[in-house]
Every structure is written in structure tokens, then in C-alpha cells.
């Protein structure tokens, strides 16, 4: 019995009762936010997108608790009003926070602000027994019991239905700036190596391909004196190497920096970048993570661009996105093979975010799975005994 439309109740207890029933009758389903990230043909869908309450927001204590259906954009605007921000980077403004957690999304801000692991302080979810359970709390420091909120990060819908989450939020810095620099080729890698060795407190670094090569953005923040000094140091590194170099004060020149991840201090939405990349319908999107040293040391980013890839790279912290507009499975498979060859022998891992239907997680081989994958599969078996939380990641 397959539902055509996702079931998306507005009330938590209705949703809870539905999940309990499914568990009782061992009837699998897929839990989604808005639900476009992965195809789930033939599965019944439960969506948490209509759970949108704000439980609490205490700027003085720097904490917020919300339901999982709130979108990233709404969360951003809510905390921005009180001059707070979260150093996480949901990829799309419309992503629900439940899915951001379940995918453990991150972007450029992770470099200095840490990822979700560093700002999640509590969670509520429906477990594999159908119980609505909590872990953590609403204070910024807490070691009372196991931190199950972290276990649910990256769980990809396979360990339970996330219904609420509590975050620690940060006050916005006094000011933010971005250095933008364009390069014809991958000389920026050398410059980032230099910057990395200088132990310099910048907030984020993002390089992305453009029509004429690469655009590098380096974000930094603080009061005027701090930013002036960082700008001076950055100019020393970059001036004379890129084709053009400019520093923007985000508060004043937002338009010019519309692509910069620091925009609105929430940062990292891929949407403006994807617009620039003019992607079609069935493009390839791969996301890879690898140690910083390997990215800066041995990865040859030009190889991907020569084969038609458009890229977004976060060199420190070590992750990058590859987009290929060519919709043919052959071209997409070749790009994947190139990536696998480049990561051979490294600790690098790949996620297949979007592709032609001919490609699947199977094509990633061992690159899809972290070292602890067998443990992940086993914990899924234990915590989902009725096998109701359908999630392909655990099935290989």
C-alpha cells in the first residue's frame, strides 16, 4: 500500500501515533523534510515539514529549541533578528532542520565555527520502539547521559524520526568582511597552503569555479581593528597573484558579495552558486570529504574542471562539491571514476547527492562508507528492530 502524497501532520502527537502504528505493523516508510534530496519510489513517506513550532529562544542564554520542520531560512531569520547566528551551513534555504541534521550538512563555516556536532545541545525523536524520547537539554554544557543528539546527526532517516532540536547559537560578530580574489587556474591552492601555515584566524575559505577560472573567498570578522589587520595580512598573501582582488565589508556591499558564504552571517547556501552554474535537471552532484593535508597536498582540482566539472571547495577542513551538467550516465560515471582515482589511498569519502538514475551508491564502492560502516549498519539493526525507517545508506 503505497501513498502517493507524503503524510505530513501538523501535530506532534498525530505524527507520533502514526509512527507507532507503522512500527507495530512493521510497515516501512521514509521520513523526509520537504523530500527532494533522494528518490524514494514506491515508499510511503512521512514528512516532518509541518512541525514548525519554536519551543524557546533565549538570546541571553544563546539557546534555541525548534521543531524539525522549520526551514533553514526561517531559523536564520528568527535568530538574526536578535543578532545571533549559527555557524552551520544548510545547503538550501528551504531545507527543513530535521533533514539538515539527518544529513549532517555543513559548509564553509565549519572551518572555524565547527559543525552541527558543536552546536547541537538537545534532541527529541521517535525511536525504533515508537517512543518519543529526549536526550541532552537546553543548556550550553551538559554531560548528563549519552549524547544521542550526536548519534542522530548524519543518521539519514535510518535511526528514527527527528521531531525537535535544541541549538546553542552565537552572537553575531561586530562586523564581517570577505576577500574575493579570482584566479585563472588552481594557483589558489598554493596560496591557501601558505595561509594555512600562517595559523591565521579567518572564518571560512571557499573556492569555486567560474567561467574564467576560480573565485576564492576568504571570510573574516571582528571589530574594525581586527579586520583591518587580517585584511592587511591577506593582501600580503594574495596581492599580485590573483587576477583581481577586492575586500568587501558585508554590511555595506552585500550585493557584490551575493555568492559569498558569509552572506547574512548564516552562510553557505548553495542556491546562489547553483544559479551561477546554470545546472540542468539531472546534473551530477558529488560531495567528498578528505583530510585538509591531503586536499592541499595531493588533490589535483584542475583535473575535474578539465573534465567539465564545476566545483565548490572548502580547502581547510577538507571537503568539496563537484557538479557536472552533462546528464549522460557515461559522463557522470567517468567523473565519478576520476574522483575515485584521485581519492585512492586517502581517507577520502564520497556522497552521491544527485545523479542520473543509472548511478547509485553502489558505484561509490568503499568510498561511500566510513571505516565504521559495519558498526553503523549494526546499530541501525539494533535500533530499528521492526525495520521501518527505510534508508538506503544502511543497505550495502
Amino acid at each position: 500500500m503505497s501513498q502517493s502524497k507524503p503524510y505530513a501532520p501538523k501535530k506532534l502527537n498525530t505524527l507520533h501515533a502514526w509512527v507507532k502504528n507503522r512500527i507495530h505493523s512493521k510497515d516501512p516508510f521514509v521520513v523526509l523534510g520537504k523530500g527532494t534530496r533522494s528518490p524514494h519510489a514506491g515508499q510511503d513517506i512521512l514528512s516532518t515539514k509541518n512541525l514548525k513550532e519554536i519551543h524557546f529562544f533565549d538570546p541571553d542564554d544563546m539557546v534555541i529549541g525548534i521543531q524539525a520542520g522549520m526551514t533553514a531560512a526561517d531559523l536564520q531569520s528568527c535568530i538574526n533578528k536578535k543578532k545571533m547566528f549559527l555557524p552551520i551551513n544548510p545547503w538550501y534555504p528551504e531545507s527543513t532542520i530535521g533533514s539538515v541534521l539527518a544529513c549532517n550538512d555543513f559548509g564553509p563555516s565549519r572551518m572555524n565555527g565547527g559543525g552541527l556536532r558543536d552546536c547541537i545541545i538537545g534532541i527529541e525523536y521517535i525511536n525504533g520502539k515508537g517512543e518519543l524520547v529526549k536526550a541532552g537539554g537546553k543548556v550550553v554544557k551538559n554531560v548528563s547521559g549519552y549524547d544521542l543528539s550526536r548519534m542522530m546527526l548524519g543518521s539519514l532517516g535510518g535511526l528514527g524520526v527527528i521531531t525537535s532540536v535544541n541549538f546553542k547559537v552565537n552572537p553575531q560578530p561586530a562586523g564581517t568582511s570577505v576577500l574575493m580574489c579570482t584566479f585563472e587556474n588552481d594557483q589558489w591552492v598554493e596560496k591557501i597552503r601558505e595561509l594555512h601555515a600562517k595559523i591565521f584566524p579567518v572564518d571560512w575559505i571557499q573556492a569555486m569555479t567560474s567561467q574564467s577560472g576560480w573565485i576564492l573567498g576568504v571570510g573574516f570578522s571582528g571589530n574594525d581593528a581586527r579586520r583591518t589587520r587580517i585584511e592587511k595580512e591577506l593582501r600580503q598573501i594574495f596581492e599580485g597573484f590573483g587576477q583581481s582582488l577586492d575586500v568587501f565589508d558585508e554590511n555595506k556591499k552585500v550585493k557584490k558579495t551575493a555568492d559569498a558564504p558569509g552572506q547574512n552571517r548564516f552562510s553557505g547556501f548553495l542556491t546562489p552558486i547553483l544559479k551561477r552554474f546554470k545546472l540542468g535537471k539531472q546534473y551530477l552532484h558529488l560531495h567528498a570529504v578528505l583530510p585538509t593535508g591531503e586536499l592541499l597536498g595531493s588533490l589535483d582540482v584542475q583535473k575535474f574542471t578539465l573534465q567539465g566539472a564545476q566545483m565548490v571547495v572548502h580547502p581547510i577542513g577538507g571537503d568539496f562539491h563537484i557538479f557536472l551538467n552533462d546528464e549522460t550516465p557515461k559522463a557522470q560515471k567517468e567523473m565519478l571514476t576520476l574522483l575515485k582515482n584521485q581519492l585512492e589511498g586517502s581517507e577520502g569519502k564520497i556522497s552521491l547527492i544527485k545523479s542520473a538514475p543509472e548511478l547509485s551508491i553502489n558505484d561509490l564502492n568503499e568510498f561511500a562508507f566510513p571505516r565504521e560502516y559495519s558498526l553503523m549498519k549494526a546499530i541501525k539493526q539494533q535500533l530499528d528492530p521492526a525495520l521501518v525507517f527505510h534508508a538506503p545508506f544502511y543497505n550495502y
Partner: protein
Amino acid sequence: MAFDPKIKNDLIKILDEDRVKDDRVTLYTYRSDALILHPTMPMGVVFPENREELVAIVKLLHANQITFLPRGAGTGLSGGAIPKEGSVIIEMFRFRQIYDIDFANRSITVGPGVVNIKITEHVKENGYCFVPDPSSQKACTVGGNVAENSGGPHTLKYGVTVNHILGIEVVLPDGEVVELGGKQWGAPGPDLLGLFVGSEGTFGIVTKITCRLTPLPEKVITLLGIFPSVRDACSAVSNTIREGIIPAAMELIDNVVIQAVEKTIAPGFPLDAEAVLVVELEDMKDGIEEEASRVQAILNENNATEVRRAKNEEERALIWKARKEAFGALGTISPSYYVQDGVIPRSALPDVLGQISDIAQKYNLTIANVFHAGDGNLHPLILYNSKIPEEIEKADKAGIEILDICVSLGGSLSGEHGIGLEKQELMGTLYSSEDLSNMEWVRSFFNPQNLLNPGKIFPTPGKCAETKMGPQIVQSKSGVVA
């Protein structure tokens, strides 16, 4: 308690005679960690030196259904390393290797027995540090830090242990070896590394740890605000953070502690001050002075009678010595004390400190406070005399009342010391029985037979807080072993 002769023989085959001990002196020494709540003799203590030996020991104990637990330096304050069921203690202190220092990845890989402060000592010259800096950092091990998800004064700005661990190697209770995380920052799938950190030695025994290194700041400014009341000092904390300034550390020391540290360390805190607030700012040298001026102004606006600034590294070190050795200094004014670790929303600090003082009055006890004010992480030290049974009972009740306040304000039972044996019976005040059984369900994945570190974190069926906590303190001369 002692080893069964056959088991002892088998253990000696894996290690050697010197590293398998069950003599009375050893058993007595290992009967508790830094919290002598209810000391229990272990069956014996073993001292492996490498992973292979450890795996063989774990497999042997597992096959014989003998309970066991790892122990680092034994500085834990919640009884995590107390062998509750007369278990075998596996001393991890000999896992002291530094495997790999990798500046390109800003990481260092070490054995779990490495003492916390040694990590920073290894990388300081290259401009890096390992951020978690518990006050016990000269003694405690990184393995213990991972198990407890320890904090420290500087975790206000940089986050607690979990934020500084990239990967671990673990021996599970059946002897299987697994690796979680690695040098890359995260990978697809559930964050099992994040889950493991803070599991209080109940999921597995850590044998290798890759720690994240953080660049040392260019400049550090240490301010000391002197306050006529604890309430004013607390308000200064809340107001600083409200302005969007997150110092590296904000530590409050009250008058009782001032008296004690002046007797031992003599940092020059005014004896008539009701509280001093240590505020440390660290960053690039450009811009930090403006921030320091702003903090200074906030302290003044909140009635600081004086704001001092450490003029050099010696003065700074003395302030931190006083802060970090404050627990020990209390020994000069009280024979015993009992430290709590509850957390409250920071904005409630001024009121809660008042309530703690009311509790002290109600029980006619002295309660000293020295704590991570920026995080709202209280450390009330309840002073009592262990020779007077009524005082023990009063200290116990006062402790529970303080934690009750924390929980009622939406706070937590522990910010960094863990639940262990000490607060397990109070977990029901924070979580529903379903929440707790769900956590136990997760534990049963890693530790299905509960052979590893049993009897911790979760309430014992059929016991309640009031009956449990009381007698525990009786045996303790002091809440903390010096």
C-alpha cells in the same frame, strides 16, 4: 576480593606477573577515583601496555563473564572509575605513546594514557594547543577526558572535548577493535564518534585518540574584576555575553575560596572581596584591546570595585594557579567537601547563587563557589566535617537541593564531571523512564552484556535519590582526594 587463581594465571600469560595485581595495597589504592563516594575494592588490577595485550585481556574477561572497567588517572569526580561490582580494573596509564603530530591536518594522535597537559607541551612551540583544559590537566588522561567529555575554563569559547576529537580507536567489550572518525572532519553516516565521547567508559576502551590542535592566540589579556557581591559578579558575566563578547574564559571565585587560596597560593585577591571574576580574552593583538576596554567597562558598570589586569605571564599564571588549584586549597579551611557540577541557564546565575547561599544558611553549612560562570556551570563546594554524621547528611541534602534548582530551571545535573555513580539516582529528575531506557538500549548495542563498567549513569532499579545519596558520603574524608 582477589582474582580466581585460574583467571590470574591466564592473565599472567598475557601480561606478566608484575602487571597482574590483586594484593591488598593495590586493591585498596584502586578502590575509588577522586570522589570517594562508596569505595569498592576491585577484583584485581591489570596494567596492559598495548592494544594487543588489552584485546587479549578483554577477550579473556568477556569469555569468563567477568566485569571490568578502564581507568585513566583516577581524577574523575563522579565515580566513573570506581569498580562498582568488584570488577577488574584495566589501568590505561601506560598507553602513553605520541604516534603522530600532523600540522598540515592540525592533529596529534596519542595513546589514551597521555596526560592532558602533555599534548599542549608537545605542540606549543609550533604555535598550537589542545584546548580542553580541565583544572586537573596536570594529572588527568586524554582517555578520561574523552570518556567524560571534559570541559575546562577555556572551553567557553572553544567548546568541550568532543569538539576537539577527530578520531578514536576503541576495543569493544568483546575484544573487537573499531575505529571511529579519522583525520578528515566527518564522514557520511551517524556521528558515532560524537556519541562515544562522553559515554563514561561504558561503550568501549579507547586505545588511540586523534586530537584536533588549535592555534595559540597571538595575544592574551587576563582581567580580574573585584566585586562587592557575588550577584554583581554574576550580572557582569551575563551582561558581557549579552553584548556579544565571548571571552575565552570567565571564572568566578567567591570569598570562601579567596580566603583559602590566599592561604596557600597567595595570588593577591582582596580578602574583603565577595567575589573575583577572571575574564580572559585571547585573539589577534589587533582589536583585542578594544574588546578588553569594553569588558572592563561592563565589569565597572556592574559595580566592580576594581578591575586589575595581569601585567605579565607570571601574574597571569598566578591567577590561573589560584583558579585551578582552588579545590585543593579548600583543604585548609575544611576537613571535607563535596563538589557539585550542575548547569543552569547563564542568565539565572545571579538568582541561583543567592539561592545556594540560602541553602547554606538553611543547613548551617558553608558553601564555596568557584566555577565556569560563562557556561553557567556551577561548582558549589559544600564544606562539612566527615566526623559529624549530621553534617554529612546535611551536606548531602544541600547537594540535592542545589541540583533540584538546576533541573527546575531547565538546566542539567552535570556540565563536565559526568553522572557516574554519584548522580545516577537523580537521572530520573531530568529524563523520563523512556528516555533512560532508550539510552540503555543504545548502550546495549556497544556493551550488550553490561560487562564493561556496570552500574553507572542509570538509576538502580528500586532505589531513589534520597535513600541513595545519603550514606555514600559517610566514608569519605573529603569529597576529593588531594
